[in-house]
């Protein structure tokens, strides 16, 4: 892991690497950046724990983690896109449209050209909406990689399109008959996705599974390396024979898959399929990824960091509710934390730089000035 996941030169803190650095380099910066996110998380936990006795109560932690999970899964998909140097604003809408598809199919799908109504089994329903999610992502991918539309714009457009489609499918209504009927053999959707095996809610299980799978993808496969390469220097990657276009397309498909998963989990959790589900989720996902130390310019970021970022956001939001901060203040604080969490390590860096300089200046009289400890 440590080989691939390092930031480009410009953004590296001054006080890395130690003398032996050139020869074996555990990846300080990635650790450091994540460390910063961890600190943010720690602070949040400490503050809220001291303000609310219930914060650390296990059932509450499980609860908050369930909320985190949704955003975390989106963030993992978002990380793929951001590593590639892109961004995916359409995930929120994809959550909406996939959830609605699931709800629609569970309600019963009156097939075109026939009087028949089909009640597909749950696995078909799930497969279908996952497929739709992948499709949305694929369209984004093609727009970006083949048509060179700026990711921000391609996915912004898709944000509107997908949301519109979700609304068209439901005609603005909400689907609630999701439990299915024995007779129709389409039961079990909710239990499958909203149960809590071993007391751990399903979304959390999914979060863990996704985290494992995607870190393997990033750190053990050629695709992972290609992804970091395209994010680091696309031209170089292309000249090295990396199928940059395909990599670019795939990351958006992956993001779409993650969004679809969240769409299903959310629908089962409510339980109801509403066309507005997931609005603005993209912002939290992006915030999580960046707080987790990823660079929006691409090529730098880790699953671990992203998860931490998701916990920072999630615990903050829930914590504010828990201690009963006024609605309006919640927004202000959330915004401030996002900025601070990212600004902090920049401050660190400049401080370290200044300290290094002072050390040298101080030691000037000694010839053969200081080497770092």
């Amino acid at each position: 892991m440590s080989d691939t996941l390092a930031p480009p030169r410009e953004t590296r803190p001054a006080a890395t690497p130690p003398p032996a650095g050139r020869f074996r380099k555990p990846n300080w910066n990635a650790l450091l950046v994540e460390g910063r996110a961890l600190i943010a998380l720690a602070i949040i936990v400490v503050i809220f724990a001291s303000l609310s006795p219930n914060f650390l109560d296990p059932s509450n932690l499980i609860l908050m983690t369930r909320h985190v999970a949704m955003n975390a899964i989106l963030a993992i998909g978002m990380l793929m896109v951001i590593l590639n140097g892109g961004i995916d604003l359409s995930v929120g809408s994809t959550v909406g449209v996939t959830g609605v598809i699931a709800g629609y199919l569970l309600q019963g799908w009156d097939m075109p050209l026939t009087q028949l109504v089909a009640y597909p089994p749950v696995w078909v329903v799930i497969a279908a909406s996952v497929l739709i999610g992948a499709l949305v992502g694929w369209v984004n991918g093609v727009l970006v990689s083949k048509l060179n539309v700026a990711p921000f714009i391609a996915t912004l457009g898709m944000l509107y399109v997908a949301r519109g489609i979700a609304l068209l499918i439901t005609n603005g209504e909400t689907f609630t008959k999701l439990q299915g009927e024995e007779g129709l053999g389409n039961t079990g959707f909710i239990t499958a996705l909203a149960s809590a095996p071993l007391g751990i809610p399903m979304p959390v299980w999914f979060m863990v599974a996704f985290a494992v799978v995607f870190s393997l993808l990033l750190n053990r496969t050629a695709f992972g390396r290609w992804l970091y390469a395209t994010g680091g220097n696309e031209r170089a990657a292309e000249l090295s024979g990396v199928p940059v276009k395909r990599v670019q397309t795939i990351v958006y498909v992956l993001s779409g898959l993650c969004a679809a998963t969240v769409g299903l989990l959310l629908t089962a959790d409510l339980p109801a399929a509403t066309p507005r589900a997931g609005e603005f989720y993209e912002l939290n996902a992006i915030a999580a990824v960046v707080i987790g130390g990823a660079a929006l310019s691409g090529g730098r970021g880790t699953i671990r960091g992203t998860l931490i970022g998701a916990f920072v956001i999630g615990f903050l939001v829930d914590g504010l509710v828990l201690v009963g901060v006024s609605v309006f203040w919640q927004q202000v604080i959330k915004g401030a934390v996002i900025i601070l969490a990212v600004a902090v390590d920049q401050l660190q860096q400049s401080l370290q730089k200044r300290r290094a300089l002072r050390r040298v200046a101080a030691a000037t009289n000694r010839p053969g000035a200081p080497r770092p400890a």
Partner: protein
Amino acid sequence: MTQVAERPANAEPDADVVLRAVDITKTYGVTRALKGVNFDVRRGKVTVLFGENGAGKSTLMKILSGVEQPTGGVLELDGEPVVLASTNDAVARGIAIIHQELNLCPNLSVRDNIFIGRELRTRRGDVDYAREARITRELMERLEEPIHPSTLVADLRLGQQQIVEIARALAADARILIMDEPTSALSAAEVEVLFKIIDDLTADGVAIVYISHHLEEAIEVADHAVVFRDGELVADRSAEGLTLPWVVAAMVGREAEYDFTGAAREFGEVALRIEDVRVVDPDAGGRLAVDGVSIDVHAGEIVAVYGLMGAGRTELMEALSGREPIASGRAVLGSTDLAGHSIQERIALGIGLVPEDRQRDGLVQLMTVGQNLSLASLLGAVRRGFVSRKHERGGIDDQIRDVRVKTAGPEALITSLSGGNQQKVVIGKMLLTRPKVLLLDEPTRGIDVGAKGEIFSLLFREAERGLAVLYVTSEIGEALTASHRVVVMSKGRVVREFDPRTCTREEVMAAAGEAGGDVHPKEPDSE
């Protein structure tokens, strides 16, 4: 030009030719980079391309390696016509290239950069990092460069980065290996190593195409010499009796050797006083890239700073220009201490830098030649709050003339110029600010003799008008022929000064710590 033998397009193929370019043309918009070139690559031979900046060398190489598509003409591999639609196509057919400019992913390790796009897999199908690392280590030993496979490329010196580029090409096991300016950032010793490797490869029957503006160097390896001029192949001969004067003549159609050792040397008072300056390596925190350097540069004097890569010269330059802070010591311009002055203020005071990496630090690629030229001196053209087109355009036209930029005009895109001409634009930009002291870091990297001559005569002309010049070079010949004084840096310190008229190459190189086999510090952090 008598000995230049024109080669007929329809010469009968000879057995050794593995790759042949037949009547290749390439046009970029209006510029005709290649005008019907016939070019052969021979098995087990080193074919060297000579040619001025913009002659079309890189363009042809990009076509031979599938990076660019020719506008017209055919490529024949072993007599068979082929289309190289992508670099993969080329690699699949055994053609590898070392690009003139670095193409590395700074955020990846050396190992990853070498194996990107052709990963070694385990039986489980995932990447076999261990084996890749082992091969990388072997390559690095072969190149005598102590770089650990998992080092970040971003942490490498330019020179080391170029070594990685070479290693990547070697790892491809190509039967045709194209090297476009592979040594522009390498030390003499590293070049020697490369040449050993080239010998081994040719012995194994690998065909090599070699491009370099270090002419002596190129002549040394050549089995076969080809000369380009203005997109045409003007000479094609075997290397026996190949001499520097012939090459230069064929390249520029005239004698263009330069030697300024005789230049006037009445200097004014000290223009730039550098006193015991220390600079912290921006990347390796705490480590000193410049460790107590003191140099005086007088008005009208041209001082060359010679040294190996990693000597810390770039850091010195960047500190003087204001890009990096001076940790301790003073730099005094005339009577003003530069401490605490921004880059902008320093340029106004009369000191500016022509950076080492023109693409990263020198040019605004989206802008035109004119806009790049006037960027640093724009305020001078401001009248009543607005930029006066007349004044701006005036300065630009003068500069294009003075610096002899080969361009369609001020409105041409800077990216449409060849490397050398781009460099001239960067220098012209700084001269337009009417500096008292001009700093240049590797001003002639990847630039042809003709252009080098022009650039130095330009500098000496300005020097006679009182400009003080401090420039970094890694070319010993240049340091000795184009300076009033040579300062040798090593490991962040000034080790000695020489008078180019009296000293010898050997002395200088020895002082730089370049003599003998092991010249590159095994411990990079002792640089």
